[in-house]
């Protein structure tokens, strides 16, 4: 069985994993990191978004073996210890979730999107975040939380 070494939330991990295991299932079922969600398993909802070498990607359409040597950050690695990331706090403040199932993907995606630095206006941010569906319809709070962080948090702290 192929051996995979990569970094997840700053910790090195070595896994024995067959090629057919998605990064999403490796994180959830092998590493027990259940924060990354499976909503469609086909790249249609964004719930499985993680940061890979700083970029937002879909872990459901990624094979774990393709990420040998990569640096993965999941929702469990976003806060600094007990201190929430400003975006996590903004999500709470703006009631940017209801059921909470899309939330990890929304947050990882938004951090990746803000770091990309390509979306500036509200309309651009809405479009750039549209790969993350929210079935509860918490979109208003999500967009407000992201805008607040974009406007108040220095880019290097995101």
């Amino acid at each position, binding site marked *: 069985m192929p051996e995979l070494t990569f970094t997840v939330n700053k910790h090195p991990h070595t896994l024995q994993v067959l090629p*057919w295991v998605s990064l999403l299932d490796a994180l959830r079922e092998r590493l027990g990191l259940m924060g990354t969600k499976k909503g469609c*398993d086909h*790249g249609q909802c964004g719930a499985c978004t993680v940061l890979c070498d700083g*970029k937002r990607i879909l872990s459901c359409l990624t*094979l774990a073996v393709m990420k040998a040597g990569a640096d993965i950050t999941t929702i469990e690695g976003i806060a600094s210890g007990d201190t929430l990331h400003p975006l996590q706090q903004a999500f709470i403040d703006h009631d940017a979730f209801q059921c909470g199932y899309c939330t990890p993907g929304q947050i990882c*995606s938004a951090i*990746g999107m803000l770091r990309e630095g390509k979306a500036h206006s509200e309309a651009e941010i809405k479009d750039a975040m*549209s790969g993350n569906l929210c079935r509860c319809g918490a979109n208003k709070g999500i967009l407000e939380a992201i805008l607040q962080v974009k406007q108040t948090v220095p880019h290097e702290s995101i």
Partner: protein
Amino acid sequence: MNPFEYTRAGSIPEAVVAVSGEPNACFVAGGTNLIDLWKYDLTHPDRLVDVNGLNTDKPVTERPDGGVRLSAFATNATTAWHPIIETRYPLLSKAIGAGASGQIRNMATNGGNLLQRTRCYYFYEPQAPCNKRTPGSGCGALTGYNRIHAILGQSDSCIAVFPSDMCVALAALKVVVQVSGPQGDRVIPFSEFHRLPGDHPEQDNTLQPGELITAIDLPEEGFAQNYSYLKLRDRHSYAFALVSVATGLILEGDRIQEARIALGGVAHKPWRIPEAEGFLIGKPATRESFAGAADILLEGAKGYAHNSFKIDLAKRAIIRNGLMALSPDTQLPGARPSA
């Protein structure tokens, strides 16, 4: 969902050898379409040869002939946001940005974008007949729900459309595709890369077994002054085009010196008719001129029970996008119609 072997290729020749050595081996890059199809049990590779990371140190390079080379292995996002592309080929940048989602654009590669398979419902549904999926089984879309289907270039075997946005811009830009294969390297003009379905809709393109796209070469002219990409769909983002248009113009005064128009969402390949572009040369950049070009582009269009609206819609979109190209700053995120 079947098990498969996995190899990471260290070079292009290594990748080509690995794939051409086995009947059911295929390249994997972003995986955004292949892994999707595999999970739907629609494709059954025995081996995936990972080509990620090949030639990505230089995703975009300027060439001596004045053109620009895109690495096939660079991601869509890297390409769209590269300063050379943003400044010299903004039409391509906008078209890429209108496709899929931010995450998918960070994964999907340029080469992979050319190889996307259709989003036809019947192709994705194993219970349905589909000549593209199972040659000889028939076409469920012909008499089924065909709102998203082709109006141009289709056959009785297949009315599926090619779903890419990026490729609509590439068609308008008249790029060429560099491929490496077991028989060596060759260059395919973009207009010959994708096929019309004919009697063999299972073949999306003219690549031969074992051939790997290595680069896409853009000619010098990028239509950076007057361009527009317009995408019409049922929601404002993260949806495939019902109709899309890429337009590039070179103007001299109010007259059109050169024009390029390509349509997406209407055919088995990006739809471009050189005669329509020729029609515009020397004409004023007006609604009437674009309407004339639209008529040529849509000549012979045929609709079905649910998609006849596309014929008229495509004409309107060509006209509107021609006018939007006169002031490219009117474009909105998601390639929506101008305000």
